[in-house]
């Protein structure tokens, strides 16, 4: 690759543009990842030189009931979150289809939740969901009951999933809406010949046609579940009884409160592998090539 008569070839321009991206990745992805791998097998407490510790961190993490409990909590979170966010996003997407004027305004209103500060809305929801908060006082006054939104081990995760659903329903809904918009009307016209009931049309036609958008939303939802931090940190602190203790909370405390970055690094790798495997399973089992169907 040489310069010909002082002119930049397309290849040179391409290489120059790619270099920035490559450098960015080297610095902010490859370097931290290598450091993460080294730390996972090291004894290091932020000061001095890391010393090789063999499999010690693995043994300690294998016996760490808090960490494995937090991974189980990811599954519990998904159990609440997936049905809520999928149903909510689909309802939003279908609703948006039928709106004439003000569509952009409504879509942006829903997106506002997505760009709001996690700390700010977590504080607001903590107050709303408090056992002595306005929601419970209303329920008590009108129905004579209160709901332990954040103070019961079985309800706390549901409440957090509810808040995260509120945050993402607009974003996921727009992704699904784009899929709905892309379905050719001829397909519906052809289906009309058989006059299928609405549910059959939904499950046999609409949902399969937006399979790629649904898979994308599912993958996003899974990554949210593994990466959730602000909401449980602010609203429940991982409790009660560790029922909302998520992997990132454990990792954060291990690194910065217990000052064990080596163990936290290994946890990060385990979390990354687990989320990658979950995504692979989703793609293998649910992804369909709609184009060639």
């Amino acid at each position: 690759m040489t310069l010909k008569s002082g002119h930049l070839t397309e290849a040179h321009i391409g290489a120059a543009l790619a270099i920035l991206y490559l450098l960015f990745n080297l610095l902010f992805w490859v370097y931290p990842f290598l450091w993460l791998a080294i730390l996972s097998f090291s004894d290091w407490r932020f000061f001095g030189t890391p010393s090789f510790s063999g499999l010690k961190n693995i043994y300690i993490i294998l016996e760490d009931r808090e960490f494995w409990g937090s991974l189980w909590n990811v599954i519990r979170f998904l159990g609440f979150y997936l049905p809520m966010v999928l149903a909510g996003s689909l309802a939003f997407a279908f609703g948006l289809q039928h709106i004439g004027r003000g569509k952009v305004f409504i879509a942006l209103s829903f997106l506002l939740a997505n760009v709001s500060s996690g700390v700010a809305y977590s504080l607001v929801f903590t107050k709303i969901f408090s056992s002595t908060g306005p929601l419970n006082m209303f329920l008590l006054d009108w129905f004579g009951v209160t709901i332990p939104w954040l103070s019961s081990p079985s309800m706390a995760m549901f409440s957090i999933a509810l808040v995260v659903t509120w945050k993402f329903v607009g974003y996921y809904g727009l992704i699904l809406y784009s899929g709905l918009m892309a379905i050719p009307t001829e397909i519906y016209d052809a289906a009309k010949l058989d006059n299928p009931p609405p549910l059959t049309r939904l499950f046999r036609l609409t949902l399969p046609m937006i399979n790629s958008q649904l898979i994308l939303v599912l993958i996003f939802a899974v990554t949210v579940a593994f990466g959730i931090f602000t909401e449980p940190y602010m609203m429940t602190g991982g409790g009660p009884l560790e029922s909302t203790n998520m992997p990132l909370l454990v990792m954060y405390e291990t690194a910065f409160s217990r000052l064990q970055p080596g163990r936290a690094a290994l946890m990060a790798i385990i979390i990354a592998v687990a989320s990658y495997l979950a995504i692979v399973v989703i793609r293998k089992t649910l992804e369909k090539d709609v184009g060639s169907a």
Partner: protein
Amino acid sequence: MKTVIRLLLVASLLLVGGCSGSGSAAGDSARPKVIKLWVAPNETQEEFWKIAVDRWNKSGLGLPVTFTTIPATGSSEKAILTALVSGNAPDISTNIFAGFAAQLADLGQLQELSAMAGYWKLIAARHMGRIIQGWDQGGKKYVFPIYVNPTMIWWRSDILAKLGLKTVPRTFDDVYALSRKYAALDHKYGMQVIAGKNWQDRWFDFISFYYATAAGAPYIKDGKAVYDNAAGRSVVIFLNKMFRQGWTAADFDSDDPLVTGLVAGAVRGPWDIAYFRKIYPDILKKIVIGPMIANHKTEGKTFTFADTKGLVIFKSSRVKKQAFAFISWVFSNDDLSLLWLRKTGLPPARGDLMTNPLFRAFYRSHPLDRQYADYVDVAVPPAFIESTIDVQKTMGIDMIEPIEFGIKTPEAALTDAVRRTNQLLEVRQ
């Protein structure tokens, strides 16, 4: 390909050059000309340090001091740790709590203050002999405590009067009697007995009640949890009864329950006086401050927990002696102690608050603050251990929460928490 490699090299050098710190500038090996001080990100404390530093710099007694607040986005501890790891730590930092100090000392990051010339003279000048005992790590002192906030209980005097009570509750039985009456009113609770969900909250519930009942005896002794004793048992029985009877709620996160009158009493520190004076002055007029509640009435003052923080000199500092000279000057100056009190309202870590005429004059016109100052000598700091967070998390997960949800008897919860804490401490040793 050569072009690509050259471009890569140039870009890498630029990046490395840009990323490297400014420490390699000329004169790096020369001794710094200033003492760098980090102070708590708190408006009133910042005001104090501004005046103190200004006076020191004008006095010409030593190296000038520059100060900034701890650049904490999350917590002070994370900001200090990051600075230490990246080599950007100041010479002195305030806002250090016992657990973090124990971690830093264990990692060899702190200068031993008790080995510095003039240290014991300073301790004697401030009558801090008793206070400093709680900051011992292997016979050495790494932290100089700045303030001691005893935890006390705030009671709404109007509610007590409505219930026909003439004195503040002193014992668990007193709280039961009050709660029984107050809960009979519409959706009310006797007292907030659990401060919150986080590990720090144990300072303001279990540990405060424990110190009060155990006359200040430690909950961790010789590297072992020892709170499964009569005092610990009476505290968990108290908590259990309050929850089972519905005399307290799982959380009061919505609004301040003292302000709304949802509870008659709650554990509070002296910082709330300034806060209430500013935000809820009318409620503050109805507040009476009582000692920490205990299982039984005690002769004299009831022990309580001391929320206390101090300052450290980092081992990385190249002006340790000069930094200690500055500290000695600030903290041996009674006028500055009074200034601290006036600005922050937090009792300075001194043993003569009730005897020194300077402070007595202040407290005469500040009766609520005086109540706190009066308990400084019976306020016990938290255990000086590296595993503070895990020990207090265990208290919450294995003891407080199972009691709250009624899934363990109080005795079983206490035994489980102590056993798990000891397992944890054993692994750390």
